[in-house]
C-alpha cells in the first residue's frame, strides 16, 4: 500500500493578521507557523491505515512551501510518515489551487499511490479545491469532508459530512483521494523518541520549477479585512420580558428552532 499525505504549513490562527503591501496576501513576518489542522487528521488517518495493515504500507508526506515548510513535514514524519517530500516554493501563495494541485499531481503521477489523504482545506487560503483537483488530474476517485474511514482490502467505506448536519456513507475502490474533516480522528502527539527518529528519515527536496505547471487560473485581486459591522443587540427589561424577546429573535433567525 502506497500512501501520499499532502500537507501545508499555515500561520497559527491566534496570530494577528495584516494585509501585505501588495494587498493580495497577509504579511508573513512575525507570524508563528504550524501544521494545518485538517492535515493533522490526514496524517493520523494515513498512519492508522498503515497500522491496520500491520505496517505493510509506505507513507510519503508532501508539502509545498518555503524552507520553514520542512517543520510541518518533520512533524508528519514524527507522527509516523516514512519519507518527506519538500517541493520548495518561496511564495506559494502566488500559486492558485490549480497550480498547487498540478505540482502535486506531477510529483505523484508515476508513483503508483493507492491512497492520497489531505486536509479538507487549508486554514489560511481555505479554497478547499486542491484535493479534488489532484484526484481529477490523476484520474482517482475523490471523497471530500470525510469524518469516518475504514479500509477492507482494496475497498474503502467512508463516512462524510453533508449539508444540514447529514452524514453520508460511500463505498468505493482505490485509488482514491480523501479530504479530511474535523471529527475523523484525534491526531496523536509526536513523542520525543519519534521526533528523534524523524531526523533520520529520508527527506527529498525538489524545486517547484522542476515540475512545469501551467499559468494560474485565478488571480487574487484584493485582500482586505471585512468592514466592521455595528455592535451587538442589547436587550433590556425584566427577566420575563427578556426571555420573550430573546425567544422571538431566535425563532426568527435561528434555523434550528424552526
Amino acid at each position, binding site marked *: 500500500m502506497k500512501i501520499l499525505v499532502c500537507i501545508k504549513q499555515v500561520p497559527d490562527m491566534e496570530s494577528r493578521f495584516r494585509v501585505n503591501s501588495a494587498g493580495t496576501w497577509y504579511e508573513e513576518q512575525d507570524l508563528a507557523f*504550524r501544521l494545518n489542522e485538517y492535515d493533522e487528521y490526514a496524517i493520523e488517518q494515513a498512519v492508522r491505515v498503515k497500522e491496520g495493515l500491520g505496517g505493510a504500507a509506505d507513507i510519503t508526506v508532501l508539502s509545498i512551501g518555503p524552507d520553514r515548510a520542512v517543520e510541518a513535514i*518533520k*512533524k508528519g514524519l*514524527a507522527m509516523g510518515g516514512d519519507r518527506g517530500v519538500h517541493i520548495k516554493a518561496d511564495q506559494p501563495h502566488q500559486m492558485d489551487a490549480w497550480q498547487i494541485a498540478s505540482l502535486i499531481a506531477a510529483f505523484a503521477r508515476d508513483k503508483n499511490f493507492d491512497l492520497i489523504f489531505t486536509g479538507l482545506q487549508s486554514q489560511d487560503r481555505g479554497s478547499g479545491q486542491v484535493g479534488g483537483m489532484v484526484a481529477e488530474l490523476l484520474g482517482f476517485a475523490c471523497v471530500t469532508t470525510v469524518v469516518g474511514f475504514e479500509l477492507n482490502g482494496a475497498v474503502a467505506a467512508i463516512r462524510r459530512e453533508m449539508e444540514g448536519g447529514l452524514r453520508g456513507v460511500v463505498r468505493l475502490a482505490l485509488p482514491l483521494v480523501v479530504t479530511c474533516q474535523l471529527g475523523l480522528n484525534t491526531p496523536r*502527539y509526536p*513523542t*520525543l*523518541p519519534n*521526533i528523534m527518529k524523524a531526523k533520520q528519515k529520508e527527506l527529498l527536496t525538489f524545486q517547484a520549477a522542476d515540475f512545469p505547471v501551467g499559468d494560474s487560473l485565478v488571480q487574487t485581486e484584493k485582500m482586505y479585512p471585512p468592514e466592521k459591522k455595528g455592535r451587538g443587540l442589547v436587550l433590556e427589561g425584566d427577566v420575563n420580558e427578556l426571555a420573550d424577546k430573546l425567544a422571538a429573535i431566535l425563532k426568527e433567525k435561528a434555523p434550528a428552532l424552526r
Partner: protein
Amino acid sequence: MDFELSQDHKVLQSSVRDFVEKEVKPLAIQIDEQHAIPDELVRKMSAMGFLGSYLPEAYGGAGLDILSYAIVVEEVSKACASSGILISAHTSLACDPILQFGTEEQKRKYLPPLACGEKIGCILLTESDAGSDPANLSTTYVKDGSDFVINGNKIFVTNGGYRGTGILFATFDKSLKHKGISAFIVDLQSEGVEILRHESKLGIRGTYTTAFALNNLRLPASCLLGSEGQGFKIAMETLNGGRIGVSAQALGIAEGAFERARNYSKERVQFGRPIREQQAIQFKLADMYMRIETSRLAVYQAAWLKGNKKPYILESALCKLHASETATFVTKEALQIHGGYGYVTEYEVERMYRDAKITEIYEGTSEVQRLIIAKALLS
C-alpha cells in the same frame, strides 16, 4: 552564529506545546489544590518521552540533546511548574549522574526504567544541617564485607514520594569532610528506607518534597556510583547540570505569567480604555519581557554548552540566578497587572507567584549562584 532554534528543535517545541496546552494546562489548578500530579498525567508525560529526553536510545531514552530537554521543561512549566520540576529533578538529579558516572552495567540496569517513567528519579543529598554545604553531611555508611550499610536522615527530596530510584550521598567519616563522601544508587522500595513525611509548601504543591530515614539500609557493592570518596564531585557536577533544568522551569513559569498578564492587559478596561494603554502597565510589560528574553538566551546557552561538552559551570549558575530572579519578578508584576483578580486562584498567576519563589532556593540559592559566578570569575 545563529540564535534561531533549529527546525528539529522547533518541531519539538511545537509538539510539546500542543501536548501541554491540551493535557497539562487544564489540570494545573487541580494539581496545586490537591497537592498531587495525577498518575495519569505522569503516565502521559512518560509516554511522550519527557522522562528520557536526552538519555541515549541504547538506554531507552529519546537520544535528543540537552537543549531539547530544557525546551521540554520550559514548555511544561509554562502551564504547571510542579510537572516541570518532576521532569527536571528526575532527569538532572537522578538520570544524569548515572549516565555520567555509572558503569555500563548500572546504566543498563537503572536507566531504561527511568527513561520510560516506570521509576521516577530523585536525589537524596540535603540534610537538616547540610544544604548549600554538602561537605557537612551526617548520613554515614560503614562497610560490612563488600556491602555498604547506611544510616541517617535526608530531607527536601523532590520526587521522593514516588519511591523510585534515588541517588544517595553519605559519608564514611564526617571528619574527612568532602573527601569522605560517596554516592549510591538506591531502590527506594528497599528495606531500611522509611518515608518520614511529605512537606506542605508555599508552591510547587503538586510535587513530593519528602523526608526519609535510612535505618541500616544495606546496599551491595554494585550500588556504589563512581568510586568511594568521589561523592562530592558527583554531587557538584550533578548540581551544575540541574541548574539548567531549574532555570528552564523558572523561564517557563515567567513566560506563563507574562502571557497571562499581556492578554489581561488587553481585556481589562479601566477609565474607558484597556490598561495596556497606560504607560505604567507598558513599562511593566517591557521590563518583564526584557528579563524573560535574556533569561532564555542564558538558559539555551548553558544547555548548548553542556550538550556540546564545553565548560558550563559559570553559565549554568548565571542562567539559574537570572532566570529564577526573573521568575519571581515577572510573576509578581503579572499578579499586580491583574489587580484583585491576580489574587484569585482561577486566574492562575497567584499560583505562579507562589511557584516561582522556590527556583531562587533549590539546587543552590541565589546567594550560592553568586558565589559560584564570583569564584569562576576570580580564580
